[in-house]
């Protein structure tokens, strides 16, 4: 039965891989323009552009995200390296009006091209959201006392995000 789970779970990934492999054929044959993938905001580390080699990420990002998804959901493991939230934080501009359905969105740029539908963004944020969850020690600034939130958000996000995305073997 486990085998069956795995098969079903890997099915979309497998299909995507086939599609990716078939890309050159399509490009040669049909002359569809290559997707214009928006650049990331920063490098993950001095050695690596992304959280894993770029080729690997292009091919297998869904495996990493899927694995992380179950780890986070069921076991409470919240390491940022392969978290979808961090993909979005780095690859999608803040306050952008380019939302998930738009072919200019980082994820959609490729997925539109490869004709692979993702449903991540029916539930997940499709652009960076400034953190509104508070550290307990900052209590006193209440979430429903609106004005304080915005102040705090401003000061938190850029810096925190930077630290978050640079984490994973790298000191600041």
């Amino acid at each position, binding site marked *: 039965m486990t085998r069956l789970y795995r098969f079903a779970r890997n099915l979309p990934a497998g299909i995507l891989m086939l599609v990716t492999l078939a890309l050159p054929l399509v490009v040669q044959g049909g002359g569809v323009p290559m997707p214009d993938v928006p650049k990331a905001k920063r490098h993950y580390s001095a050695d690596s552009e992304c959280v894993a080699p770029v080729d690997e990420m292009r091919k297998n990002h869904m495996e990493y995200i899927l694995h992380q998804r179950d780890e986070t*959901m069921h076991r409470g493991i*919240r390491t940022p390296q392969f978290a979808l939230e961090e993909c979005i934080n780095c690859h999608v501009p803040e306050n952008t009006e380019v939302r998930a359905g738009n072919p200019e969105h980082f994820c959609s740029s490729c997925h539109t091209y490869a004709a692979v539908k993702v449903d991540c963004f029916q539930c997940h944020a499709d652009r960076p959201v400034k953190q509104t969850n508070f550290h307990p020690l900052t209590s006193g600034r*209440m979430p429903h006392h609106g004005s304080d939130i915005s102040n705090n958000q401003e000061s938190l996000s850029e810096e925190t995000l930077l630290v978050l995305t640079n984490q994973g073997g790298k000191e600041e």
Partner: protein
Amino acid sequence: MSEKQDNQLSRREFLSGSTAAAGLAVAPGVFLTLTAQAKPAGQPVSSENRWGMLIDSNKCANGCTSCVSACEQENGWGSANPTENKSSPEQKAQWIRKVTLRDKETGHVQSLPLMCQHCEHPPCVDVCPTGASFKRADGIVLVDKHICIGCRYCMMACPYKARSFIHEDLQDQLPHAPRGKGTVESCTLCVHRVDRDSDKAVPACAEACNSEGHRAMVFGDLKDPDSEISRELKNYGGEQIRADLGLNTGIRYRGI
């Protein structure tokens, strides 16, 4: 301002894990206390803990809905997510709600917040056909929306009406509280806070109640005999709503 700085840095510490943290320590006192007990981000939750809450209905102020609005803000539902605007009030999500009761005999009026009771034996988990409704090792009951098919059987089974089905497309969800059309959701006991800050975490509702000065909600580890919640329960007791069902709820009440 300097305090804020400190807090941010110590929060970075949790997020970046304890080993890489050392070089970043700026506020040693705060930092050390916290990292000494916090669960590193890469470590799974364990059944050594069971998170729960004790709600004292005598301290819960009639008319105060701070816990509800704090939850809305924290998790991006209700007034905090204006994109859920087509659903009727009966259809809208409601993670936590305030209830005011009157004793039919004595006329005693009391109020209390009601949300997912994080049962040890959750009926919603029993009935879910796909296992999307599940209980974590540390006792928090969640919905894995990735495998939720939206059958709503869990909502039929829940004795507390704690769960909501999303009736329309949503946008602008918060990264730590994904929610979307066609799936079921409920109180997560602010699981993102618990995971990040471990035993120093306080759910948004309890935090709001404290800062309003009511202190009606005590959050903590039911398996740690020294935690405030365990001591309170041991010394003064606490009741479960619908204890007759034998679900052993993680949320306990006093004065009901």
